């Protein structure tokens, strides 16, 4: 019976073997393409497996003694995660080959973290959730330390300490939930009344997750880590990690709150946290002079917007699709932003906000791609960011959280100040652009593909919105 279950986790298994293979092949050959092609091959095969599983999907199954679940939500999120990682590998080919000393270790660790994320999104047992969260974040700590800058070690240590701290808090929450409901399996939680233990457990659980999702006031590590990490890891943290974290949050919340009890106080508390996250993120970003730090704060603000849909999920389950759409849209947008950002950093050898002044005159393509990403983050119509915002705020208003929605839209025009500042530097400034280095056009190519997706999903969101509605309904 357990051998039948293995078929369902074929794609994480393939990825694990890919990671080990990449690690081993380094002993025998030092040819860059071999390592790369085997990586892409492994990712591609697991992607194909997932697609086949998605299109032949029959019914939800719980596997391995009911510790993980195999459903459409897992398949959809897994496909998203692997596509994101694939895009990161292709775009950062040049970076990994030329700027990372131990490239097969780097690739292998990143894929192992991806395997962890794949288990995160299918786990329904708190022990499995804990283990897979560790598997996804431990490699990241090593990967952060791969950076060459003086901040790298500091960033890695910060992430290490805060990640372990947050897991501790998460486990405390699990303890309370177990005490109150009598189970550590999400499917068997038996919550009949609201008692302090449940609320306390939920709050601890949420704080543990909030560290991973960089929701304020647990965001302190984000700017430092972003500044110190190599760009592929920053991109991975702000896209794939976000997707995995929010999928897990949706899974936990939709199971715990599937009863008809009313959690008014918890909703108010989470609304305040969401508002704080948006505000701290946006106000923090206004003050930044470093591009990576600026986008770190912007991530904090966006985590606040994503939380809006999660709060609405407490009362209506279908609201989760809004957050899911926002997260996927945000991931696509951030891919295009970070790829073009790396291209710019290669050109200028600097991460200062002022270094990109006048970029448009000498490098129009990367500027346009970058601008599309920025407009999507700002939430201008015809981009996926706009649709995401409309959706999460609509789910908020639907559930009576009008004030939260107002706070959200006010925040999104506060963010106009610094996003427009970036656009002004790139397009309007008449300063001469100082080019200090060269870059690879692969960044622009992959960023261009994601910005096409940004536009297409912004103009006709139904393409994936109906799919997301469908997978959320199957939870």
């Amino acid at each position, binding site marked *: 019976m357990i051998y039948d279950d293995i078929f369902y986790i074929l794609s994480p298994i393939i990825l694990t073997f890919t990671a080990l293979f990449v690690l081993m092949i380094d002993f025998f050959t030092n040819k860059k393409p071999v390592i790369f092609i085997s990586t892409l091959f492994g990712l591609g095969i697991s992607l194909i497996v997932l697609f086949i599983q998605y299109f032949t999907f029959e019914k939800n199954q719980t596997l391995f003694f009911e510790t993980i679940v195999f459903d459409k939500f897992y398949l959809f999120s897994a496909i998203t995660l692997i596509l994101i990682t694939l895009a990161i590998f292709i775009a950062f080919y040049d970076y990994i080959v030329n700027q990372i000393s131990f490239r097969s270790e780097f690739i292998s660790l990143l894929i192992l973290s991806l395997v962890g994320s794949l288990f995160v999104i299918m786990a329904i047992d708190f022990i499995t959730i804990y283990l897979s969260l560790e598997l996804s974040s431990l490699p990241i700590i090593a990967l952060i330390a791969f950076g060459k800058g003086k901040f790298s070690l500091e960033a890695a240590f910060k992430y290490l300490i805060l990640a372990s701290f947050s897991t501790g808090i998460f486990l405390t929450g699990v303890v309370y939930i177990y005490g109150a409901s009598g189970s550590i399996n999400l499917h068997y939680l038996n919550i009949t009344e609201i008692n302090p233990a449940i609320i306390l457990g939920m709050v601890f659980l949420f704080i543990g997750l909030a560290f991973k999702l960089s929701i304020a006031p647990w965001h302190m590590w984000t700017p430092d880590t972003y500044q110190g990490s190599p760009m592929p890891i920053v991109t991975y943290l702000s896209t794939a990690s976000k997707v995995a974290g929010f999928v897990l949050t949706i899974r936990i919340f939709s199971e715990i709150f599937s009863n008809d009890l009313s959690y008014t106080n918890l909703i108010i508390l989470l609304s305040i946290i969401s508002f704080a996250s948006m505000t701290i993120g946006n106000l923090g970003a206004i003050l930044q002079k470093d591009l990576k730090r600026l986008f770190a704060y912007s991530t904090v603000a966006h985590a606040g917007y994503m939380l809006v849909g999660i709060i609405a999920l407490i009362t209506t389950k*279908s*609201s989760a699709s809004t957050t899911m759409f926002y997260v996927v849209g945000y991931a696509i947008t951030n891919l295009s932003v970070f790829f073009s950002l790396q291209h710019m950093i290669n050109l200028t050898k600097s991460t200062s906000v002022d270094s990109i002044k006048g970029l448009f005159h000498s490098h129009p393509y990367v500027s346009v791609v970058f601008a599309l990403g920025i407009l999507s983050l700002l939430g201008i*119509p015809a981009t996926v960011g706009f649709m995401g915002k409309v959706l999460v*705020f609509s789910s908020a208003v639907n559930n009576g959280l009008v004030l939260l929605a107002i706070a959200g839209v006010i925040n999104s025009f506060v963010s*106009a100040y610094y996003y427009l500042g970036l656009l002004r530097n790139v397009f309007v400034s008449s300063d001469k652009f100082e080019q200090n280095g060269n870059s690879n056009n692969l960044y622009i190519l992959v960023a261009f593909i994601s910005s096409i997706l940004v536009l297409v999903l912004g103009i006709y969101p139904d393409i994936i919105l109906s799919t997301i509605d469908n997978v959320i309904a199957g939870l």
Partner: protein
Amino acid sequence: MINYLVTITVFFPAITAVFLLFLKNRDKIIFAAILSSVITFAFSLLLFLSYDKSLGGIQFIDHFKWIDSYNIKSSYLLGIDGFSAPLVLLTGLLSLVACMASWRIKLRVKEYFIWILLLETSVMGVFTSLDLLLFFVFFEFELIPMYMLISIWGSGRKEYSATKFVIFTLAGGAFMLIAILALFSSEAVTSLSMVSINELGIVGIPEMIAGQKLIIPASVIFIFFFIAFAVKLPLWPLHNWLPDAHTDAPTAVSIMLAGVLLKMAGYGLFRINLGFFQETEGFQIFDYTNILVLLGTISIIYGAIVTLRQTDLKRLIAYSSISHMGYVLLGFSAMTNNQNFSYYSLNGSAMQMFTHGTITGLSFLTVGLIYDRTHTRDINKLGALTRKMPMIAVFFMISGLASLGLPGFSGFVSEIMIFLGSYKIYPIHTIISAFGVVLAAGYILWMTQRALFGENKLQNDDKTYDFKSLKDANLFDLLPAFLITIPIIIIGVWPNIFIDFFDLGIKEMIK
């Protein structure tokens, strides 16, 4: 009849903008942009002329499924009714004028015309979209072209003004978004269509929310929509962005901004604030008209008084716009209940939008021509311009006289209609507002006297421009001015061609 004529009209400029990307030669780019706006104007004229007034209602409907999810349902719904047909024509005309007026542009020509054409698409989209979310998409999309146009090709504190413009409008848009979401979240509302279309089985929001309870009080939703449009109109005390944006924008952008962008707000007031809130539970638009009419009056008088003190030609016209858009609100809000209102004032208010669009367009066009030659807009440095550039002065005078409401020009028609209608309902406000016309005569005549006639006030040591070598406009400069003068005179003599349309549209909005 051509299928999808409205969709073609809306998106033709955007498609040309993409096509412009592949052109290299400056002359070709300008030619293609002007040709595109001529064709779009032809389409809008075709729409205007082939709208069947005997049938009325929404015509030329394009309808597709767009977003269909649990949390929001919206469709791609474009169409024209009596109220939007003239505004589409106005957009076509002013975009053509804006493109033609930019033929001297030298800096980053390709991008400039791409942004202008995208701007045209978004404004056209606002006037034709009948789905609330689609309306909002077009309403917000216009920000990016405007930001780029003002901050790159503007003058003075251009980046400051552009950012101010965007932040003001985004703040207004934020309120509108909340209002839209609140409407959709109400149980009574199942789709976001702004009008009912019987032949397609579409029920509009006005019918759905009639007598129903909404998720937040209808008065709050009304105020949210109103704030969004008041920022754009612009209404005192939210007008702060307009003088800066106008002063620092290039000529063509000023024409678009004053000519059509402000009208999006007026259009929204009629379509949404008047259209939706006549039969809502617990609150109707009539409860708040006393406040609206007061705001309108303050705008008229405040705008006119501030205009008197201006010495920058563009700033002067910008402030006069605030005063003139105040008339739109005065005419719009002159009603106290379902019976006690006047079609005169409502029609006059709609007409004021159209006439102000053409008149201010002409004003900014001629000021742009003057600025091109003298490199200053400071009234204290101009003077005696009629001697050197008589044709420009003639058109400037036409715009000025039309703006102060001289009979025979279009401004007179709309203002007299507004006063006639609103006097019955709010006599005191109307009497106070009528002084706005006196003030308008004051600032227009005083300004023309100082700038166009008298003696040249340029000091001998001032090298801003050389009065002796000033040249009049050539034929190509004057062509757009001619084009835009035609409707000013036609409406002044024969206003019915447009009033018929507006009357038809407004009668369908009033229950």
